[in-house]
Every structure is written in C-alpha cells, then in structure tokens.
C-alpha cells in the first residue's frame, strides 16, 4: 500500500515540475522579470503619500508652519507634475490603439489640483476637499457657497491665482 502512496506522490511531484517543461510557450516567469511596476506610477504614489504625511505631521503639531508650507508647496508641485504627465499623450511609437483628444491643459491642472486636495482631505480624515466644492481644502470647513474665494473659517484662499 505504501508503494502506491509513494507512486501517487511521485506522479504529483513530476506533474508539478514537469508540466511547464512540456509547454515551450510558458513565459509567465520570464514576463515576471520584465513586468516591473511602472516606475512613474510608483513615484506618483510616493509623492501623494508624502503629501499626506506632511499634512498629518502638521495637524499633529510636528511641523512648524514654515516647514509645512515649504514641504507642501514642493510636494504639491511634484504631484501636479505627475498628474499632468500622466494625462499627456503617450510617447511616439507607444500610441494607444484609439487616439484620444489631447486634453485641455487647464482642465488637466484643475483635475490635478482636485486629486491633490482629495489626498490632503484623506490625510486629515475629512470629506473630499475639492477646490470650488463645498469644502475648504485646507481645514475641511463646509463652504457657504460654491464660488466662495476665501474660507470663512481659516481664511485661506480657495483657488490659486492664475
């Protein structure tokens, strides 16, 4: 009986080891080596994570106002860059099958700002704070009107000056 058990075990072992060898088209592993995560996507995530962390540290009184403003400005700029780049058309030779219309730069910037504000809102645990929306992107206070230029709670501007 034990010989049968051993034979069955050997069949399973040989199947697991041998099956890929008899399928020459097996390139899953080789793809694995090349299939690295898109670096720019990772960079983008990191910048957003850093933004969130800066906001957290500031709210938890771990950063001075000056450091907070400086770091936030730097990361926001980087985040906007990544967002704009990701919205721009693919490089030559890498065009997608269907060509999309080139997005309007202002529209991209508005979307980017919205996403940055969303990340900051998530850091502070408040509702999505989109400029021009019903919440202040800085303190999360509810706006009195959609077109309000300055927050009535923290006094900070609600839109960047062009």
């Amino acid at each position: 009986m034990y010989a049968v058990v051993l034979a069955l075990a050997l069949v399973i072992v040989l199947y697991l080891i041998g099956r890929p060898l008899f399928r020459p088209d097996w390139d899953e592993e080789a793809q694995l080596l090349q299939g690295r995560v898109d670096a720019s996507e990772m960079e983008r995530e990191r910048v957003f994570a850093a933004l969130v962390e800066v906001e957290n540290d500031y709210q938890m009184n771990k950063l001075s106002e000056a450091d907070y403003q400086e770091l936030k400005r730097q990361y926001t700029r980087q985040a906007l860059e990544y967002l704009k780049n990701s919205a721009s058309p693919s490089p030559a030779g890498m065009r997608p099958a269907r060509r999309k219309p080139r997005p309007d730069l202002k529209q991209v910037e508005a979307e980017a700002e919205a996403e940055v504000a969303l990340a900051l809102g998530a850091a502070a645990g408040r509702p999505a704070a989109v400029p021009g929306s019903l919440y202040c992107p800085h303190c999360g206070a509810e706006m009195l009107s959609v077109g309000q230029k300055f927050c009535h709670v923290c006094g900070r501007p609600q839109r960047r000056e062009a």
Partner: protein
Amino acid sequence: MNLANLNGLGTVLLVVGFFVAFWAVAAYVVGLRTRNGSLMASGRGAVLALAFVLTMTVLILWGQFIGSDFSNRYVAEHSSTDLSLGYKISGLWAGNEGSLLLWAWLLALYAAVVTFIRHEEGQELLPFVSTILSAINLFFLFIINFLSRPFVALSPVPPEGMGLNPLLQDPGMVIHPPMLYLGYVGFAVPFAFAMASLLANQRGGAWIKATRRWTLVAWLFLSIGIIFGAEWAYVVLGWGGYWGWDPVENASFLPWLTGTAFFHSMMIQERRGMLKGWNMALIIITFMLTIFGTYLTRSGVVASVHAFGDNVLGMWFLIFMLTSLAAALYLIISRRHLLREEHQFEAVVSKESSFLLNNLILVGLAFAVFFGTLYPLTSGWLTGNKVAVGPEYYNAIAAPMGTLLILLIGICPLIPWRRASVRNLMENFLYPFAVAAVITVVLFFAGIRKLPALAAFGIIAFVLATIAMEFFRGVRVRLKSGGESLPTAVWSMMSRNRRRWGGYTVHIAVTLIVLGIVGSSSYQVSKTYTVGIGQTMSLGGYTLTYKGLQQTRQGQAEVVLADLDVSHGGKAVGKLRSQKEFYPNSEEPTTRVGIRGSYKEDLYVILNGWEQDQTANFKLVINPLMAWMWIGWYILAVGTVFAAWPAGRAAAAVQHQGSAAMAQSD
C-alpha cells in the same frame, strides 16, 4: 529501504524532497541565466512540490507518534503510549531529527506561500527569492537525509517508548517551539528578498516594501514563542525563571533584537533612501542569528538546559552559517554601488537620527548578549578555562540600555522627519514630561525610593503620556473636520495608518512588559518556611495555611500536591496548590509552582520538600506587577497583527511612503 512500513515511505519521501529542492535551485539558476520561462516555471512547481512532499513526511511522522509506532527510533525515544495527544503531537519537535524536519517543512511552506502569492512590490524578485529559499532548504534536507534521520527503523520493535522528557511535559511544549521555529524560519524570507535585490541589481527599496509584512510575521511568531517560553519557565522550575539568560534563550532573543532594529531602520530606507547598507547588514545578521540559534542548540559548544548537543551536526551548521555569511558579504561588496545612500542626515534631532540611535542600542545590546553567550567558548580558547557569565552580567548591560530604549520609544514618534525645531520639541514634549514628572513625584511619596525603579516608572509614564497625546491629537484633528462620531474617528484614524497605530500599540505593550520586569525584579520579596499541617505562613499581607499533602497519578507521573488556604488582610481569597512531579524516566522531580495572580502582584509558592510526618518546606515569593508583563506581550501580539494586517485602499496610500518623494524635495 523497506516500503512495507511507514519508516521506508518517510525515508524515500525525504530523498525525493532533497532532489526536488535540488531541482528547484538548478531550474531557477539555469532559467534565470538563460531567461528560460519554462525552466523557471518548473522551479516554481518544484517549490510547491517540496511543500507537498515535506507535508506528507510530517503527516507520516505525526501518524507514527499518534499511533505509538515504536518501530521508528525517533518516536520510541520521544513518546510512549500513555502520553496525551498534545504531547504526542509535540513529539515531532522534542528531539533533533524531528525539529530539523519541522524547520525544513516550515521553510518549504513559507517558500510556497512567498512564491505563489502576489506581492504588490518586489514581484520581479520572486525567482531569486525562491532560489535562495530552496537552497537554504537543500541544506536542511541534506542534514535530515544524511546526518539526522527521523525515520530510522528499530528492530526488534520495543513494546513501549521512552516517553517525553518530563521537563517538556507542559502545555507550553505544544506552542512554544513551533512558534519559535516559525519566527526563526520566517526571517529567511526577508533575507532571501534582500539577497535577491542584490542579485537582480536592484537599486531601489522594493525588497524592503515586499518584506515589511514578512518581517513582522516572523517577528510576531518569534515574540509569541519567547512569551510562551517565559510563561512556561515561570510556572515550572528548572528552566531558570521566566528569563534565565540561558544560552539558548539568548539565541532566540538575539534575532528578536536585530529583527526589531531592522523593521525600524527599514522605515528610514523607505522614506529617505538612507541606511541601505545597514539594512542589508541587519537582515543578514538576523538570519545568521536564527541559524546560530540552531547551531547553539545542536553543537553542544555551550551548556544549556535547552541543548540537544551533537558535535557533528553543530559543525555542519557552522559550515552552513559561514558559507552563507561569506556569500552574503560577497554580494554586498560586489554590488555596493546599489547601496549608495540617497541622503545624509540633515539634523541631529530628527526622526532619522532617533531611529538610528534606537538601532545602535538594539544592535549594541544584541552584541553584548552574543558576547556573553559565547564567553564560555572564547574564554576556553583564550585561557583554556571555560568561564560562563551569569545573569548579573546581562542585567548590568540590559538595564541601562533597555531604559534608554524605552525613553526613545517616547521620543521618536514625536519628532518629525528631516529636522525638529525647538518650538516643535517644546510643544510636543512639555505635557508628557509634566505628566511623567508628576507621576514620579507621586510614586516617590508613595514609597518608591529605589532610584533605578523610580526612573524606570517615570520613563514609562512619559512614554504612555506621549502616545496618549498622539492619540488625542489625532482624534481631535479628525473630529474637528466634522462628520464623524468618536468611535468612527478613532477607528478611521487607526485603520488609515496601521503601521503607525500598530506600532504605538506595540510600544504601549513594551512599556507594560518593562513595568512587569522592573516591578518584579526591584520589589520581589521572599521567605522560606517549614510548617506542619494547620500551621500558617505569612508574607506581604498574605497568610497561607498548610492543609497537607496528597499523592496522585497524572499520566506517567507520580504527583505530590501541597494544598494551601490563602487569605489577604484577614479575608479568605482562595486556595493554592504547589506540586512536585516524579517521572519514571527522570531522576530529578519537576516542580510546578502554585501562583495566585492579580494585577498588583503574584503570590508564588514553591514546594521545596517534605518529611514523613507531612511537615513541608515552602518558599513564598511575591512578584509585584508580574501580570503586566504577560498582558504586555499579548498586547504586543495584537499590535503587530494590526500593523501587519493588509490595509484598505485609502490606508495603503497613506502607508505607501517612499523615499523618492523626499529625495526630490531636497
């Protein structure tokens, strides 16, 4: 080889396992060199096949233990028919051969899980990782097949086994060794990822991100293993107390210390691209220390209550350890350009520098413990006399370094990355410092006059106050934003940043453990009494009335029980029982203490001996604050699970804090 019995089947399966592991390594190496996907996929299949084969062998050995099949020498030496099921199952790791099989099996399972689950980062490293894990397992399979075989047939078959070592007959035996092994073996995974990143010429920190959770899992198992061992040694005399600085205890503590240092310093690499070489060194040292523990247990180079002692095996482990170390160092040196730092420290007072200090203390403590553990060996080489260092040596080092470490637990979380301003330090430390000062003064006037203990309690208060302040600030920020109830705010704050809040929970746990250690070591009182039936003993407000001895049989053991009535402040609070167990396969009896525990203190009663007329000798001990040590360890486990638990999408974004963003900001 006789396939008519389970020993033959087990032996053949182990040989198959050896060749499968060899194939896994060979297929991956050739596949990686030639970019042959089929070969690599075959290697992947071999990793799964090895887990399958070793699971079968373990099941066979367990089957032999449960069925008391004494035709297997290993089973006959570590089991008997009258053992309970739990101890029969524990027989697998009661001796050398079985514990090595357990190691190989767990490593095969880890390798299979690592190879087949999808990693968000470091996925491209998996072929290298699987190769390294299989190569490590090849060594263990070599040992199991040629030097320490668990399926040796006995002829004639003895009618009864020799039973389990009496010192091992404790519920702790069911959990403590496998948890330690899961911890030891688990550190092979981050080690393999680290080596893989060098082999793959990766400059980034993908391996750090890929192994964060694996490191926590290994560290958690190691922590659980250590705590169960400590609890076991606390209730059964002969192991040297909950922590006796025994060489093999130290061997489990060493990778715990360096592992702790590693998952703190890995955060600096993730955030700032710094300490790359240091992190590599730390995980190599941690992995080597897990092998060192195995070497220590099996080589017999130092005397230990835990050791198996086998010089030949020890030599092989030493060879493996040195070869692995040489290979790892070669990789580090030859690929040192990959480990170039992206940043330098910007300020003396910053989170980075406080983490580095934490690392230096942890590694320094590990070195001191390592030095003390091997002192009998080095002194033997140098002077010809083997001299062992006692607990005094370790305590003299661990107390100040531990105190500094606890202080850093309070300081680190409040300091920002890059640099801290004076104003920031003032605002963040004022309240915790004030709380600590007030508590220290109160404790002083309450009668705590021993300076080291008072300082330790003050520091513990400071740490708890800093964490409480962080907690309230975080909750307040969320509540201010509106729209959340208090419980929701607390949960969403914690679940959005599991690493941070899991870490804080672990920090709370560590302070509680220290509270227990300081309380029980600084304010322990004891007294020895010889009393007749009906006579009383008293200590620290407790009065114990001796009610006499009973003799009974529990499994293999003849047990002598002493019954005591306990009262406190004149009020009856319960009964207590202390006992000695006599096993047929041991000359020395096992002493199991009687404990009456509370959050304030443990009343600990040892039955030393007795006379014909039932006059008995007892040692009474009061261990203040002991319960907090155990509570602390369990909170530590909860905090680690919380930190390691996969985060939701929003939380993942918060936790996904890399170095690149910080890098570009400079």
